[in-house]
């Protein structure tokens, strides 16, 4: 049966291999029926886990396990519904096939465990207590063989079968409560013991995983150690290749070598690092233990399919470019795309990813916030450091010029591409409006032509016998300096495009738009953006219908075991939605909710829409007031058609119940008697700190139409929440 399944999977893989257009790479989408893991209510999942707790356990242990499942199911549910976890796609199916391969004939285990991929660039995999193995795309991108993936899955299987997550929770709970061996022990002792406990789990997962599953599966045993070496350098990109600045250059636009480091910093990662307080043992110790188990070089690197592995690896690497953009890791997005472009030098998706990153960087630079998205090159190791240094060295406006130059070159290669057009217009606007640069600021002829002209001028000055005059010397020096090109390399940025009517007219049009703008005596855009408060109160938007993206409430409680009041959070989320419905009826605004938890489940299309919308909204919120195009913007038109609304809202509430200092308040009550009613009320109610947020975005333009963040020191009571929700909705509806 499993062989048939594997064959079926392979058929599906090959179908997808041929269907992917890498130039127009589409983000990975989930395929098929949405699994119950995503749609089942948290309480229901928790209840079914709770029911499995042995009734023979002592009450204390029972409560501890109950607390564990309450917390574990909550966090898994949050992870599953954050739009990053996928099912049924090529990579997930491939991982599942490899997992089936190593599990072999244990059908019971096969039924209780499943794999999902996570759209995260982090090199990581994790197993949950309820039998889900999460594999990050960052890990898939770094793997070199299927055998390495098989070892990781074997390792995670042991974490699941040996209930490591539950054991670790129980141990941490004992530490927290100072029970058993932790009674009256110092914090250092507790930390040390916890670290040892966790490390033992890792050794156990390595060794048992190797012996129980990996060794028997037929994969090459060396892969177990190879993967540890991959983990050692996991903080680096998937490859280390010297960065070539020529990807930004053209015939006349050459970035001076002074913008580059003479030597990049060496890679310092070692495998024998200090792991005293770490949850994982150091890699050298793990390698040593595994080496003792390896019995030779026999076995295969690929048992399911090498071609599908390569395809998945390529997909993961392509997806990384997008994920880095979404997470504002622009330099990593450029370097990742640069690495991939070596095999596909004119790939539209990869070049567009670089264009998006350059656009975002230039926008952040124009707002003097570049440091927010550009880590210090001194903290970077390896060849990518060169790129960090280069971007850091570019002076004011040079990043905008570089961005426009790159995007226009891309536009020339893909003239009918709508998305590239949008970025081209934005880059033009950025150059003219934000940097006040015009066509006249750039040279129209090449550096060589300028040199010839310089020499001609010198000759003519000599011929006219004015070569020794003051004016002649000034002119001559000026031309000499300009033609040397080292200082004003950016002035040659558009020489290649000066014969190009499309470029010249577009720039001139933007200039006249800017002139009109200035003529209207409006302050320059840069200042206007700062002055205009997009987040001002009492906006009147005149919108009739909006869509809410899963709105959540979170209740934190200092008394709760791990700080979260799970049941209250769940109940309040439901109530909050009801308040939104009630208030929307009052203001006559059509609202709909798009979320995972719906009676009868959701369909695959809704699932994929939810995922891309969550990613879009997350990125948009991260840009805050920066008017930057959201990197997933190009996928939004089809999403808008499917969801039937261009306005998306994200709202929620966080309430923290804190500890109260009773003594101080009693004294205060006695001193300030007239304030007694308030002080008594203060005494009997807990200390609260709450935050409520509401965002409304236009998916078409990326504009933040409404963005409110309210902080208040009371409970998230019905009147407070309704009052805020109404105030948001009335602003949306009213003209």
């Amino acid at each position: 049966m499993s062989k048939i399944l594997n064959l079926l999977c392979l058929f599906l893989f090959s179908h997808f291999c041929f269907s992917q257009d890498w130039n127009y790479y589409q983000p990975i989408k989930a395929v098929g029926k949405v699994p119950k893991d995503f749609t089942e209510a948290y309480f229901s999942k928790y209840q079914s886990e709770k029911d499995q707790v042995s009734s023979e356990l002592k009450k204390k242990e029972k409560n501890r396990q109950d607390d564990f499942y309450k917390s574990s199911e909550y966090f898994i549910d949050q992870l599953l519904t954050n739009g990053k976890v996928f099912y049924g796609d090529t990579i997930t199916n491939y991982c599942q096939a490899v997992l089936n391969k190593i599990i072999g004939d244990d059908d019971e285990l096969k039924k209780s465990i499943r794999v999902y991929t996570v759209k995260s660039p982090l090199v990581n995999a994790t197993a949950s207590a309820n039998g889900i193995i999460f594999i990050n795309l960052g890990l898939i991108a770094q793997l070199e063989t299927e055998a390495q993936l098989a070892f990781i899955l074997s390792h995670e299987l042991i974490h699941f079968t040996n209930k490591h997550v539950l054991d670790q929770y129980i141990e941490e709970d004992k530490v927290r409560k100072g029970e058993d061996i932790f009674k009256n022990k110092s914090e250092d002792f507790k930390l040390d013991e916890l670290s040892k406990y966790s490390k033992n789990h890792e050794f156990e997962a390595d060794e048992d995983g190797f012996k129980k599953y990996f060794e028997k599966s037929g994969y090459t045993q060396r892969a177990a150690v190879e993967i540890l070496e991959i983990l050692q350098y996991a903080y680096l990109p998937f490859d280390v290749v010297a960065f070539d600045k020529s990807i930004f250059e053209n015939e006349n636009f050459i970035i001076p070598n002074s913008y580059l480091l003479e030597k990049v910093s060496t890679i310092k990662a070692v495998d024998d690092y200090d792991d005293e307080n770490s949850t994982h043992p150091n890699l050298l110790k793990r390698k040593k233990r595994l080496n003792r188990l390896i019995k030779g070089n026999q076995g295969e690197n690929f048992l399911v399919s090498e071609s599908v592995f390569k395809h998945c690896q390529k997909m993961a690497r392509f997806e990384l470019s997008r994920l880095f953009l979404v997470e504002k890791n622009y330099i990593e997005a450029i370097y990742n795309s640069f690495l991939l472009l070596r095999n596909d030098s004119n790939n539209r998706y990869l070049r567009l990813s670089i264009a998006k990153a350059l656009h975002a960087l230039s926008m952040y630079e124009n707002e003097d916030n570049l440091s927010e998205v550009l880590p210090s090159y001194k903290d970077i190791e390896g060849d990518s450091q060169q790129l960090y240094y280069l971007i850091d060295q570019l002076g004011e406006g040079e990043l905008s010029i570089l961005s426009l130059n790159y995007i226009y070159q891309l536009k020339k290669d893909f003239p009918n591409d709508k998305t590239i057009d949008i970025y081209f217009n934005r880059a033009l606007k950025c150059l003219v409006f934000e940097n006040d640069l015009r066509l006249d600021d750039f040279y129209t002829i090449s550096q060589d032509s300028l040199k010839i002209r310089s020499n001609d001028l010198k000759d003519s000055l000599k011929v006219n016998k004015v070569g020794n005059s003051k004016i002649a010397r000034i002119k001559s020096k000026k031309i000499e300096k300009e033609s040397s090109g080292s200082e004003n390399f950016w002035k040659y940025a558009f020489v290649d495009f000066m014969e190009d009517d499309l470029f010249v007219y577009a720039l001139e049009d933007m200039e006249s738009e800017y002139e009109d703008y200035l003529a209207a005596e409006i302050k320059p855009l840069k200042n206007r953006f700062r002055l205009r408060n997009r987040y001002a109160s009492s906006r009147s938007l005149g919108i009739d219908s909006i869509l809410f993206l899963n709105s959540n409430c979170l209740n934190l409680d200092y008394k709760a075991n791990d700080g979260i009041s799970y049941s209250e959070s769940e109940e309040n989320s439901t109530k909050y939605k009801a308040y939104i419905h009630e208030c929307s009826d009052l203001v006559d605004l059509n609202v709909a909710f798009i979320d995972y938890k719906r009676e009868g489940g959701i369909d695959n299309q809704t699932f994929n829409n939810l995922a891309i919308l969550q990613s879009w909204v997350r990125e948009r919120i991260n840009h805050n007031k920066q008017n930057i195009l959201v990197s997933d913007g190009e996928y939004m038109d089809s999403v808008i058609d499917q969801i039937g609304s261009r306005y998306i809202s994200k709202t929620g509430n966080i309430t923290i119940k804190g500890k109260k200092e009773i003594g101080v308040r009693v004294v205060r009550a006695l001193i300030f008697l007239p304030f007694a009613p308030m002080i008594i009320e203060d005494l009997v109610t807990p200390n609260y700190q709450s935050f409520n947020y509401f965002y409304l975005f236009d998916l078409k333009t990326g504009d933040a139409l409404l963005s409110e963040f309210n902080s208040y020191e009371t409970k998230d009571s019905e009147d407070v929440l309704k009052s805020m929700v109404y105030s948001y909705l009335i602003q949306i509806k009213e003209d």
Partner: protein
Amino acid sequence: MKKFILIFLAAPFLSQAQSIPGYLGKRQVVSFDFNFIPSFVVTNNEDMTDDIAIKMTYKNGISYDFISDKSWSYTGSLDFTQTYMEATAADFNGYDHIRNPKISSIGIGAGIKIYLQHLAPLGSHLELKLLYRNSYVSDYGFEEEIVNGIEELNVSQLGFGIGYMKSRVFNDHFVFSYGMNLNMLLSLSDILFIDTAPIFNLGSDVLKDNIKTRIQLKETIYMKFSIGYLL
């Protein structure tokens, strides 16, 4: 000044052009206010003894709020209270049979409420008010033949009040508030320097001063509870 007053008065109506939420669109609150404070000296009761004991002084009233902004409302109030003159002060002019004349007082207030944390009318807020209070002796305690022919003893006072309150809304309609108020009253005649004619041949100023003192003492500080209805 005229302009300022006009703008102040017109503001509630001008502000209707914006998206003012109120509470679920309701922007008017009519409330019944109950103010009280345990007091050593001034009470509502006739029982004026020299014993030092804490007695309750109180006043009732109604108020109307109009929410004009997210954190701003206009408020107007009307309240009624009564107290008694001090026996010693009233015992003058040979009429030793006078018994604590009763003072009745009507107060009118107008001002603003500034909401500090939540949207009006919720949460903690400051109340700033201008006050007008008219107090008069409603029952002199004289025998009838003496009262006849005596001009009414009437005192007008202006003042200001400041309050700190907290409000909650229940059932989307009922506003429950609690807090405290501080009021300071000045005699209108003192402010306007009006030389009022004596009512009695002797001691009318003493009587008036007594009324002022009593009212001021009574008005100085209150704990306040109010229950309102959102319109």
